[in-house]
């Protein structure tokens, strides 16, 4: 019996030692896991920073076009305000004469005489019609500028609660509006099914489309530089496939070299001349789409140009 007890105690000792070893390893594993979680968090923060800095770079690319887009309405707003200043002088004269007549500071005859003179100098009916046109134009110009600024802010400013549900058509519209100036020399066709609900960061997915469209537009511009009769064409189509939303952006530009096709999603890889492009455009596209549990692929079209396909989970 004594021997059995000793044997038990030895077995117990072995269990104790093994458990101690296990606990030691578990503690180390826990510490490493905490370290790993911190690194993942850091990586996620850096990813956000990369997306944000790429956005800023895109804003830089867009700035000339956006400035032009703002300049157009601004030009006719300035012109209209100048006209309003002239009209304001005329209206003041009419109002002041009428006021003086009501206050009996001028006689009836004098009032009509001066009124006729003013009428000869300024056509009242035309003035009234013009005022209405000017105010409509000003309103339209302000709305255009306000939409451009809103689009820019929506795109550039990170939102606190960034995961929302929205329709695929919203980001397509948003991206094409921001790129209006860059795309105006191209034929742009959009064919987007209704009720394609996506869930995620709307500004980031807009960024995906902007980066892709900028590439497509540049590819078309290169083709046009080589052949002046070339007519650039970009087709955006969005449709449902099983439980996924597929967005395809097809251009008829210069296309990709076979060697580049495998590397376009690599960070800092660029086919553009030195000093042009950050080399992060499609890397950011890849990162954003992966974060939304989607996939992205690119391939040359049989005729010319490339098609970039995005597949994102449909939100229910």
């Amino acid at each position: 019996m004594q021997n059995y007890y000793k044997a038990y105690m030895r077995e117990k000792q072995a269990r104790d030692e093994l458990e101690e070893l296990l606990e030691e390893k578990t503690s180390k594993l826990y510490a490493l896991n905490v370290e790993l979680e911190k690194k993942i968090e850091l990586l996620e923060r850096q990813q956000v920073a990369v997306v944000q800095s790429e956005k800023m770079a895109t804003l830089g690319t867009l700035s000339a076009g956006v400035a032009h887009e703002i300049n157009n309405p601004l030009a006719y707003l300035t012109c209209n305000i100048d006209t309003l200043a002239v009209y304001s002088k005329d209206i003041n004269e009419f109002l002041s004469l009428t006021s003086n007549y009501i206050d009996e500071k001028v006689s009836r005859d004098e009032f009509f005489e001066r009124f006729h003179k003013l009428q000869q100098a300024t056509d009242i009916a035309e003035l009234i019609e013009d005022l209405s046109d000017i105010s409509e134009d000003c309103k339209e110009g302000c709305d255009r500028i306000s939409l451009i600024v809103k689009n820019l802010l929506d795109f550039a400013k990170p939102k606190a609660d960034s995961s929302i549900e929205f329709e695929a058509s919203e980001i397509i519209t948003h991206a094409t509006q921001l790129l209006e100036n860059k795309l105006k020399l191209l034929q742009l066709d959009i064919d987007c099914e209704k009720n394609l609900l996506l869930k995620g960061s709307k500004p980031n997915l807009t960024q995906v489309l902007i980066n892709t469209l900028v590439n497509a537009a540049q590819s078309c511009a290169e083709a046009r530089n080589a052949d002046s009769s070339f007519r650039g064409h970009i087709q955006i189509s969005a449709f449902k496939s099983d439980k996924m939303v597929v967005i395809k952006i097809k251009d008829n530009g210069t296309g990709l070299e076979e060697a580049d096709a495998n590397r376009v999603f690599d960070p800092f890889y660029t086919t553009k001349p030195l000093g042009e492009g950050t080399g992060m455009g499609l890397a950011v596209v890849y990162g954003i789409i992966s974060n939304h549990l989607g996939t992205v692929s690119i391939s040359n079209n049989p005729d010319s140009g490339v098609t970039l396909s995005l597949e994102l989970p449909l939100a229910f």
Partner: protein
Amino acid sequence: MKGVIFRCLEELVIETKGMDLWEQLLEQHCPTDRVYISAQSYPDEELVALATSVSKALNLNMPETLKAFGTYLFSFLAKKHTSIVKEFHSFEQLILSIDKVIHSEVQKLYDEPNLPMIDATVVDSETIKLIYNSPRQLCFCAEGLIYGCAQHFNESVDIQQTTCSHHGDSMCTFIIKHG
């Protein structure tokens, strides 16, 4: 329930009543060839069945058995985890750190330990109010652990249980006088 608790019961029974009784209890209540390993989880019913039989063998009622077991459990765990216990310099410091320090250390070592909720607050320099809340309703064992902790720090304690889940209260409250 984690195997470490069963291992403590095993040690207590063998030390006080011998290997035969432990073997009998295992045969009576557990699957064949049961060996307890600290990090592994085992059915709660097994512990309850073993503890019930131990209380009969010791001629104690269940609350007294659990209290005695809790007292022993503290020294058992303190012996196994000396580095954690060394962090505390007084009875009060340890009791106040159960939830934040001790339970977080347990969570690092064991997967899904299903720990009870413990909330300890200082009432005055000699009194601590401790709330115990667990679906396992092992408040007697918790009381024993407090006694074991007091023994470890050479303090005398007087524990009054003012509410108890066994009597229909939502949780158990202990008023601990120490010094």
